């Protein structure tokens, strides 16, 4: 084995470990009894083992409300996002003179230039009156230009003959899109849906800006408030003296858990999406 290959194994191995270790530490910490955690800090193996934190947070209502809010944002947001993105991407990929090019530029400009925080804040709170609505978290990020272009590059690969034959049979644009294009596009639909789902699941900035009603705090916002304020952890627990540090870690696990569980199944779609996006460039 050459030196470079050996170095590669070690380097990639170390990076891989570094990527995983924080997850393990937080998981182990969340299962370590509060007394040990607060005296010895993090350890690689939970001892003494304790599920008190999970029992505490899941017996309260806060976590369930937060899951509800996050799920709503993720599911509704992803559905809207995929619908809007697919429709636009299809029209761009049709290569119609002026229209497609114009829409491509129209979608590209927001990648370069943005109005920034203040106008968005005024728009959402004053003009649309969406303060304390979960749609205030969903709508500002419902179309990602990058994913539009990922989908365009997939749509361009659909053979024109199929579409032409449908046209000869008299199918309209809507019919072609829904009955021919979408069924052919399941792989790319999965890709962009997953990218959107992760974005919505992880979003906390818009929640921080627009949501002040703690009953509809999404998970990320609950977690954020716990960083700055430990008493928030007390609020999470059902009753009695709560293991505060342990709860913070358990809440972290509860927040990333669903993503980590879905990751093994979803990973190849993400890789595919990035590959589509990259070869487009």
């Amino acid at each position, binding site marked *: 084995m*050459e030196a*470079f290959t050996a170095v*590669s*194994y070690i*380097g*990639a191995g170390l*990076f891989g470990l570094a*990527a995983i270790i*924080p997850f393990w*530490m*937080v998981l182990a910490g969340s299962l370590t009894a509060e007394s040990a*955690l*607060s005296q010895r*800090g993090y350890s690689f193996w939970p001892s003494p083992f304790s599920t008190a934190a999970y029992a505490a947070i899941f017996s309260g209502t806060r976590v369930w409300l937060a899951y509800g809010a996050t799920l709503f944002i993720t599911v509704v947001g992803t559905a809207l996002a995929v619908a*809007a*993105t697919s*429709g636009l991407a*299809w029209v761009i990929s049709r290569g*119609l003179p002026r*229209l497609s090019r114009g829409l*491509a530029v*129209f*979608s590209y400009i927001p990648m370069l*230039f943005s*109005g*920034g*925080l*203040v*106008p*968005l*804040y*005024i*728009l959402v709170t*004053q003009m649309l009156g969406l303060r304390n609505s979960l749609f205030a978290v969903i*709508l*500002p990020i*419902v*179309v990602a230009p990058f994913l*539009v272009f990922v989908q365009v590059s997939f749509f361009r690969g659909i053979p024109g003959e199929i579409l032409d034959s449908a046209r000869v049979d008299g199918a*309209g*644009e*809507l019919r072609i899109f829904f009955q021919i294009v979408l069924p052919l596009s399941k792989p790319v639909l999965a890709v962009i849906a997953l990218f959107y789902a*992760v974005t919505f699941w992880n979003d*906390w*900035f818009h929640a921080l800006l627009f949501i002040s009603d703690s009953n509809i705090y999404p998970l*990320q916002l609950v*977690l*954020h408030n716990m*960083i*700055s304020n430990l008493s928030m952890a007390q609020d999470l627990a059902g009753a009695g003296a709560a293991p505060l*540090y342990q709860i913070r870690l358990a809440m972290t696990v509860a*927040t990333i858990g669903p*993503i980590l569980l879905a*990751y093994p199944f979803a990973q190849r779609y*993400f*890789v595919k999406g990035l*590959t589509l996006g*990259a*070869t487009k*460039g």
Partner: protein
Amino acid sequence: MTGTTEDTRAATPGKLKPTARAARRTPQERGPVGSRRRRGVQWRRKDYGLVILAAPAIVFFLVFAYGPMAGLVVAFQDFNINDGVFGSPWAGLSNFEFFFTSGQMNRILLNTLVLNALFLTATLGAGVLLALMLNEIRGTLLRRGLQSAVFIPYFVSPIVISIFLQAFLAGVGGRGGIVNDALNAFALPSVSWYTEPGPWPWILTIVKVWQLGGYFSVIFLAAITSIPEEVYEAGTIDGATRAQMAWRITLPLLKPTGAVLLLLGVGRIFYGDFGLIYAIVGDNGILFSTTDVIDTYVFRALRTYGDFGTTAAIGLFQSVVGFVLVMIALGVQRRYSKESSVL
């Protein structure tokens, strides 16, 4: 929202030009009763399907992307909530004056540029290096496993990253952390990280590399896969070592991909990574001297003082400079490679 959708849908046909190709395809077909003729091209009823498909996204961009751009007029106003965007009195350039003379500007602009330059070079560099290394690994299972592992951090929210970082730098309840344990093991004194602004640019860079190194390596690996095998066969015949092939064949062929990613990054260089920096630093003022960037400053100014005018002025300044930077980067890139323009 449905109301707005309808409005714009009705308004769009005037804006969208009819499709010449659609008309050429079926010149003999007569449009339905409602169709009109313009520049020799006719709208068929079927084509309205395209408008319907694109409408939701068009509405989104108009309202949430172009709307706020227009909303930047607030930068020239003495904005107050009651009068709104349309009723607030004009303030000329006083909002800009306030920011540029506040004495904070130099530090914040410098932080933004320095941090983003660090992030961009470090993450892209790590991505290339990691891709080259992953490419050396022969066992399919090991390679796939490692690729999955390095890609995971990309899916974690800034908040969770901030909690991970605390585990390393502060420990439980701020009583040490793993990094300090390691320092102590080498007989070095502990560092109170969250009160020391000096090392933070590097800490944040390491966090960014952790977060995005794997993501970029996936993109670069895809580019490596598309390199034809013959190139390497030729290399082998000429007696090149693996290291030489990585350095002299793979790396140069990754340049176009790297250029596109760099360009996108340069375009964003004036925008701080608000999510990550705010999640990690928050309102910890001790660290502001090295970590406060335009975005975090704007957010605090808005939140603490409710000063819409000044913050919008900063936002406008940021957008304009950012836009100029992208245009320069695009120009530079167009000059050097015709192939890989982004659009």
